[in-house]
């Protein structure tokens, strides 16, 4: 029983990692006023590229690097549409997302159903030998620690730094930010690229470390759950991290239930995270005050400096 608990809790942190990275990235883009719905496509393309490159070269750093490059390339197409052409953010995100999904199938087509060894996790000295807490918290992949650090640093950036405050002003009222002399378009571009880097890392982690292998559809809605997590965390990085770990545990629910000897149809367990996303989204969105206090006012609206 203890083993099961350790397995599920440790697994929850690992499973949460791609969700957390992508959600933090999306939160920053949204804080700057840009809703980028191509997260799923960026993660998928990055995952395919990361696996293909790592499998071919054995160099996981190169795999991650090119995966991030692929994700950023997609986000530049999105940026051209949204920042350059003032196209509708929702439709542009969908368009680039579809493109990303297509490119992921293309990049991964010679690698379908291949697997490889995951790199060893990082056992932190002393801490990893602690009972219970050790195996749960301190024998994780470096990326898992990194994801939490990113969440913390993003909180610090948005709450405590001048650039963070400028980013938020751009998301609240781009016209005012523009009049104050801030380069709205450039700041939004940086925010979108930051989001793409995080989605890229999340996708790469999913296909090379979490479940090292490739099959079409590997990302399986994680990008969309990440978008939902931003609302769940009401745009606050530490709450988003909490939500990500909660969903990480949920995604492992079927393994836990099986391990405990219950027999539940697998389709019900697979549906559970999606059902939970809907319920949680409804519960959080219902609180209009909470949303109004934290949601960027200009979210989804484009800005043209010359107008």
């Amino acid at each position: 029983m203890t083993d099961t608990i350790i397995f599920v809790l440790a697994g929850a942190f690992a499973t949460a990692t791609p969700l957390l990275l992508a959600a933090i990235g999306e939160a920053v883009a949204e804080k700057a006023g840009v809703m980028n719905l191509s997260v799923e496509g960026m993660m998928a393309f990055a995952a395919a590229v990361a696996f293909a490159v790592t499998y071919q070269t054995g160099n996981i750093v190169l795999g991650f690097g090119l995966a991030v490059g692929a994700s950023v390339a997609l986000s530049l197409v999105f940026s051209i549409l949204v920042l350059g052409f003032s196209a509708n953010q929702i439709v542009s995100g969908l368009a680039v997302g579809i493109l990303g999904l297509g490119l992921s199938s293309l990049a991964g087509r010679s690698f379908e159903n291949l697997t490889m060894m995951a790199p060893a996790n990082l056992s932190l000295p002393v801490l990893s030998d602690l009972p219970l807490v050790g195996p749960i918290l301190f024998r994780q992949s470096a990326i898992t620690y990194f994801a939490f650090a990113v969440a913390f640093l993003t909180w610090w950036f948005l709450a405590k730094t001048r650039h963070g405050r400028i980013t938020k002003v751009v998301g609240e009222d781009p016209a005012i930010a523009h009049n104050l002399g801030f380069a709205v378009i450039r700041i939004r571009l940086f925010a979108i690229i930051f989001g793409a880097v995080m989605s890229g890392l999340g996708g790469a982690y999913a296909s090379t470390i979490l479940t090292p292998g490739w099959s079409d559809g590997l990302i399986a809605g994680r990008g969309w759950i990440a978008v939902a997590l931003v609302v769940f965390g009401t745009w606050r990085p530490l709450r988003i991290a909490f939500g990500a770990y909660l969903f990480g545990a949920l995604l492992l629910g079927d393994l836990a239930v099986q391990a405990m000897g219950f027999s539940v149809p697998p389709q019900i367990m697979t549906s559970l995270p999606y059902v939970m996303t809907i319920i949680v989204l409804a519960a959080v969105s219902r609180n209009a005050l909470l949303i109004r206090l934290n949601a960027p006012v200009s979210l989804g609206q484009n800005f043209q400096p010359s107008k």
Partner: protein
Amino acid sequence: MMGRYALVQRSEVSLKSIMLVPLVTFVLALLGSMVLFGFLGAPPLEVLYRLLIDPLASAYNISEVVIKAAPLILIAQGLAIGFRAKVWNIGAEGQLIIGAVAASVIPITFPESQNVLMLPAMMLAGMIAGAAWAGIAAALKTRFNASEIIVTLMLNQIAVQILYFLINGPLKDPMGFSYPQSVSFPPVAMYPLLSDDGMLRANASILVVILLSIAALIYVTRTFSGYTLLVGGLAPSAASYAGFSAKKAVWITLLIGGAAAGLAGVGEISGPIGRLQPSLSPGYGFAAIIVAYLGGLHPVGILLAGTFMAIVYVGADGAIIDVGLPPAAPVIFQGMVLVFYLASFALVQYRIVRVQPEARA
């Protein structure tokens, strides 16, 4: 970059330039795919021929185009009504699945029936079920303000799992060995074929789709004063949409979109498939989003765009087998179409002007 050039919204957008957008999009996406797939070893001109000419080169291929055009057009007509009101139903794929599942219960329960009312009953069941599935998103949007984008997307994933569960359980053909599929439907559950030639699979569902497209056209022309206004980017916000309240607009558009997608699901099981099975649609629900936009969110445009997309689908199917076009080609092509559409649409909507670096006070 944006400091020296800027977009200025045109005060008037001519209908001619709006009609030009899909054409430009279409040419750019074709050029883009020729370059990309040519790069991957498929001869570009061969790809072009395969994608555009081959699908119309034989009666069999034309019949296949009709089969694929029907669901694309039907779903897109439903979605466009929502998109015009800025209600983002991304869940047509799930609504299609639930519509098909609900309708399939009738022929699976009465596999020997000869009652000619079976197909109409299935159509009704499919529409109601699809609308109800989309209605979940409408209820959560209007009551809790939950984003319909995320809810409809999550409902897609759940719909797939419901289908898998039922097709492996209650709706499975007991004589079907280990195949997760239902019994074959009786003839009264099927749309009549359009020709006597046994090879041609095109069926009467396309007639239903054309009728509903005409209905959509009447709806649009009667409820909107000017179409040019609409595509000029001055679409009314959901709040004032066609005189409805915002909540009513959410409900009506999601229910219509869901019903159309559910009916498209019936078109698949009562058409080319003929039973319930784990895979019902090659992503029609998502491709229809692109069809809706490429058609300028206008019923007539959607008829043309859906036909075009169906041609590419059929062409790509052939080219994947014969000239080694990657199986991902249709999806990449669809993504490119939407990206180029948005860019060219912006160019008719705005003018690019050079602005002097302004002196800041």
